[in-house]
């Protein structure tokens, strides 16, 4: 079975600016894959290149074995994309929009599937409403539905939850997770790293157009995360002894956060606090997460691929 998405040595320039710098990436069928990176890292350009909205200056991209330029019709039939920008056609209702989108993919009568996605995305009572009058969250749901009208095996969601309320975010992820269980390959970009960590099996991180990390979520966190975070709520009107100040990384909800490399350092910290006569009211040890990895990687220059 061909890879769901195979990106080989792709470069893309906008004038002198290199948006994608020799990107190599293979996403297997059935994966739930996260594409992460700061703004301007090249995530959307990469998605556009896969979807045929941009053409790579060098290298090749295949979707389910079909070349996205020379076999674009086959490649696009295998792919559903939810664009990042909230876009819609103000002339049509939700149902008309989905019927038209189905027709573009050669499906003359798609009523049964349209009814199903309308129901599953909570759009049933808005089906005959004009797109113009929908809220932002509802428009976002229609965009997801548009990407699914032709039941594509590969679905790319470019920041689908940006500016979306908690309820919709959760129902959207439940739906997407279900699609993944049913066999669809999901590729996702998001700035909510906890979402990526909870949902995705594998992750690629992009920086300045380069893939700087490519690994399973578990491996990436265990190999790349450095240390733990010790959160301490100290007795009021006291502060950390000077010797511990250098370990302090921040303050949150009245707790000071200290970065430690391993568990053995906890005893030493507690001893220093005891010696200074400072009492601890609450204590919590946080495991490293994707955000720690992200921050580490974005601040380092070494690629971490596996």
């Amino acid at each position, binding site marked *: 079975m061909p890879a769901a998405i195979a990106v080989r040595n792709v470069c893309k320039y*906008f004038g002198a600016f290199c948006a994608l710098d020799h990107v190599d990436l293979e996403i297997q069928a059935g994966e739930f894959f996260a594409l992460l990176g700061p703004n301007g890292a090249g995530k959307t350009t990469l998605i*556009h290149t896969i*979807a*045929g*909205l*941009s*053409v790579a200056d060098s290298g090749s991209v295949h979707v389910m074995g079909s070349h996205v330029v020379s076999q*674009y*019709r*086959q490649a*696009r*039939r295998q*792919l559903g*994309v939810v*664009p990042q*920008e909230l*876009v*819609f*056609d*103000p*002339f*049509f209702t939700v149902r*008309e929009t989905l019927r*038209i*989108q*189905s*027709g*573009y*993919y*050669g*499906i*003359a009568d798609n009523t049964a599937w349209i009814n199903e996605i309308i129901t599953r995305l909570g759009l049933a009572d808005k089906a005959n409403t004009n797109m113009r009058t929908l809220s932002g969250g509802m428009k976002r749901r229609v965009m997801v539905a*548009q990407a699914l009208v032709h039941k594509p095996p590969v679905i790319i969601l470019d920041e689908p939850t940006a500016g979306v309320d908690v309820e919709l975010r959760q129902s959207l992820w439940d739906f997407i997770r279900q699609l993944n269980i049913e066999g669809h390959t999901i590729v996702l970009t998001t700035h909510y790293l906890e979402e990526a960590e909870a949902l995705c099996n594998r992750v690629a991180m992009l920086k300045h157009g380069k893939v700087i990390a490519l690994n399973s979520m578990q491996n990436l966190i265990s190999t790349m995360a450095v240390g733990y975070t010790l959160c301490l709520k100290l007795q009021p009107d006291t502060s950390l002894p000077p010797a511990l100040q250098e370990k302090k990384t921040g303050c949150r909800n009245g707790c000071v956060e200290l970065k430690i490399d391993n568990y053995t350092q906890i005893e030493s910290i507690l001893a220093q606090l005891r010696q200074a006569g400072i009492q601890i009211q609450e204590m919590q040890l946080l495991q490293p997460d994707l955000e720690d990895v992200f921050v580490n990687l974005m601040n380092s220059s070494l690629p971490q691929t596996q």
Partner: protein
Amino acid sequence: MTGFLTLLYKELLRFWKVGFQTILAPVVSTLLYLLIFFHVLKAHVEVYQGVSYAVFLIPGLVMMAVMQNAFANASSSMIQSKISGNIVFVLLSPLTYREIFFAYILASVARGLLVGAGVYLVTELFFETPIYWPVWIWIFAILGSGLLGALGVIAGIWADKFDQLAAFQNFIIIPLTFLSGVFYSIHSLPPVWQFLSHLNPFFYMIDGFRYGFFGASDFSPYVSLCIVIACFTAVSLLAIRMLRSGYKLRH
């Protein structure tokens, strides 16, 4: 074929849903031209023997409405989709560039013919315009609206903002239309202007179209037909090339 038919249906539905603006309004404004020019010039101009100025004017105005609305349809649909961003749903689909081109052109032809038919039918309430060769009327109406639809696709792709599209319309389309013999026969012009009119492809569309009504024209309809077909082919090839290369649509 379903993809092409769907895009065509969408383009037809788009202008049909705002029919007051896209069909009725141009019919009314073209009739205003007829009333004003007829009252001002009826005593001064007789172009063809035994043909009143109003009756001479009607085919020109019908064709002008056909052409302007065909252009407006393709160009406004394209630029609106580009600026609002919803063109992405067409670009993500497996539609070929030829399917996209022909869907836009046929929708433009449909709107051009609808508005033209509307203008003609309303004028017939007041005047009686003869029809000499219906087949020439249809040929020039379809080719003319197709040509303007293709120009509309080019303008819609090229323009990055409405201001640029308005410039294309006001500095190219409208002057070429008004100086194409809609309101007069070019035989009434000084030689220099006659020569310049012969360089205007819109002149041959109006002239050939008018031949279908009166059986008389400034040029042979066969010559006009060849010129219009050549222009339609050249403009269509340019539009198709722009769509195929993704110019200003795909990066």
